[in-house]
């Protein structure tokens, strides 16, 4: 199958790649652009390890085709930190030991940022329901929820 030329903005950079029309956005990010921070845990949109934002909307990049990224603005875990400065979510995940194996962490960080971008003061229940699409098998979610709440509090203070 012939490949399709795709232009998009990923983490602030203009990128071009050739996508097989059958490839997911996740495949293109990982295999064409070398952005392997987004992970495939299921390929069916159930685990959230591939979470990215597309024009500001949280999506599972395994459920979107690479060719659909044409003209879109995409955010991945690799774009969360400014050069040398971690996003408060990243810092709080380390401080709270909110990761064990770390495989689900990129998706959970991207999803958590999307939450805090539109709801800076979520309740514990809101955090839990927002992250219900991100599976973590190691932590039991306790420290993840605490880290997100703590990062939210810090971000509110910074405003």
């Amino acid at each position, binding site marked *: 199958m012939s490949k399709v030329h795709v232009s998009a903005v990923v983490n602030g950079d203009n990128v071009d790649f050739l996508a097989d029309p059958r490839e997911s956005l996740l495949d293109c990010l990982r295999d064409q652009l070398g952005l*392997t921070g987004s992970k*495939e845990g*299921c390929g069916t949109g159930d685990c959230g390890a591939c979470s990215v934002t597309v024009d500001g909307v949280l999506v599972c990049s395994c459920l979107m085709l690479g060719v659909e990224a044409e003209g879109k603005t995409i955010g991945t875990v690799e774009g969360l930190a400014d050069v040398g400065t971690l996003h408060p979510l990243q810092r709080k995940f380390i401080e709270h030991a909110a990761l*064990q194996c770390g495989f689900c962490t990129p998706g959970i960080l991207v999803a958590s940022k999307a939450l805090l971008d539109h709801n800076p003061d979520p309740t514990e229940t809101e955090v839990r*329901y927002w992250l219900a699409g991100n*599976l973590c098998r190691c932590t039991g*979610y*306790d420290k993840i929820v605490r880290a997100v709440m703590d990062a939210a509090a810090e971000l509110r203070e910074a405003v």
Partner: protein
Amino acid sequence: MPKDELKSEYRLIGTRPDRPDGLDKVTGRARYGADMSLPGMLHAAVVRSPHAHAKILKIDASAALALDGVKAVITRADFPTGLTGEDWNLQENSMAGEVALYDGHAVAAVAATSRLLAEDAAKLIKVEYEVLPHVIDVDDALRMDAPVIRAGVGDHTVPEGSPPNVSKKIEFGHGDLEAGFAAADLIREQTYKTEATHQGYIEPHACVAQLGSDGKGEMWVCTQGQWYIRRMCSAVLGLEASQLRVTPSEIGGGFGGKTIIFMEALPLALSRKAGGKPVKLVMSRSDVLRATGPTASASMDVKLGMTKDGKITAAHVNFRMQGGAFVGASPVGEALSCALACYDIPAVMHEGVEVLANRPKAAAYRAPGSPMAAFAVESLVDEMCHELGLDPLDVRLKNAVHEGVKASYGPTYARIGLVEVLEATKKHPNLLAPLGPNQGRGIASGFWFNHGGETSVSLAIGEDGTVTVSIGTPDIGGSRASMSLMVAETLGIAYEAVRVNIVETGALGVNEPSHGSRATFASGKAAVEAARSAIREMCRRAAKEWGIEEEAVEWKDGAAMPAGPNAGKFPPMTIAEIGAKMGGTGGPISGHHETNADGVGASFGTHVVDVEVDPETGRTTILRYLVVQDAGTAIHPAYVEGQYQGGAVQGIGWALNEEYVYGANGRLQNAVFLDYRIPVASDLPMIDTVIVEVPNPGHPYGVRGVGETGITPPLPAIANAVAMATGARLRSLPLSPPKVLAAIKAKKG
């Protein structure tokens, strides 16, 4: 950095510094199994049996091989013959021989220039099957007339005339069982069942492998144990182990499921056939669920005798487990040994059989065997406590094992902490929380042996006095942090001055995997010994420079110094000073330690769960959850809590949701995460933890190992809570809403 409230004479141990690999893991930089690519790399796809049991009549790969870009196809014919025992099991599971033994069993594999092309090619490989009768359920597999999976499978332990799929029989016990039951006021006997569940790590198995015609190969693979991968792949493919270099990637969860090989030999074989090009193979989620290590399913009888004041006088357990179509894959031996391990009982008898079924080859899953056994025994203990009007926590204390007691599985316990755990549980405020209608509280204890095992660690002093540690146990949950803490504590240097690397198979002697809750215990113990050996060398260097006897130098606060006034007056020589001039004082300084680590200390835990059961739907909600467990010493308490919480939640999933569902055709019906539903954040409350510390005398800092015990109590604790909430006792897992609803309705009549 704040030190925990735990009593501690240590400088660093017991603190909670940032993990050394934290930055890599929050930025997406950490490289896992599927994140590796090599120049000229091919991609592999696997053809899997759609049948639970079928004779393979013919495999025709001609159409696949005719595709441009397809470089190699392998079948069992590409593997060596004549293997026996577990090597044969691993080979047979890697690629089916004459018969496909379960839905998802690999029958062929293909390598091509792209993943999509490999998948297209796999679809063109035609396999002709003759479908055979199959058996899935453990009790069905035990019938005399069950479809025979492999004739003559029973070993010497299996009596003549046993059902044909029985592969192993175990019996052990001690004490006078008859007298024990005679001394009881209440004797109860029940049967319990648990379904197979999957470890459910979020990272699917993945590797990149390269193998030349010279028999030399390399692998990059997500695994709990690179030496196990090396040994198993070498055995299955007829390679020399030392010619295969295995580098572990970061690992996205394992829980026991990444201690053995499933597909890892396939890309090696494909690479060899494709002229030595590297080959990448990444499993899909459904392949992971269909064809990698679930745990066993179990059917269990328990008989207990209890006096009316709660003393357990005798116990008889009889367990049946299937671990797939392969001999020795079920954890029936471990299940029996764990079943009664929390209790000091004068007379115990254990019996068990392993039976084969048309399911994937089971792998270890966190405290293998113990959760099922605990479900059976701890459920019955709870039932009897309620029948006798006794407090279940008091009954557990009354019968609790402690130092000097002969364990149900044979040995005499050294220092253990079950009594301390139960006492800490009793004091916890969660036990005072009021319960409303349809709510119930469940309590259960659990046990895991913990493990030492083959361990090899090296440590090198840098030119600036910083320290590199080479560790052979992959870091699944923060063990780099605990290793760094122990090494820094021993050397008297900063936590940040230590760099722990998880190294490939060429860098150290053989290490067992990160399994058995052994990484922090065994690699930690060896790392401390390696540090002590480097200290001895650094003291020698200082003694030489000062012109005094080695024995007159001691190591303190990261420096060599004269030991006492008679040794002479010299200023301390720091590790940085020693490192800076080691080139001129005798060369590089390193420490090394190899051991088959002894001194293992068992870990006990008790969980208390409050649930609410919706009487309209049968759905169970976890309201509160408490884990109390003995860590020995918590090196990094945050990651100890993480193990407790993660183990508890896996147990919650096992208790409430998770099960392998098979259709009448023997195919797995729920091989995606949507249908094999593991707990999500909105299912759960916070998981409260109490770290009890009864130091293990067999470890320099008292470590026991904490990974596994935590999955054991949730199964019975939740069943006990649901029984209290509904009045209905369920003796088979999972406690899914329809099952609970039916039990409530049956209770009401």
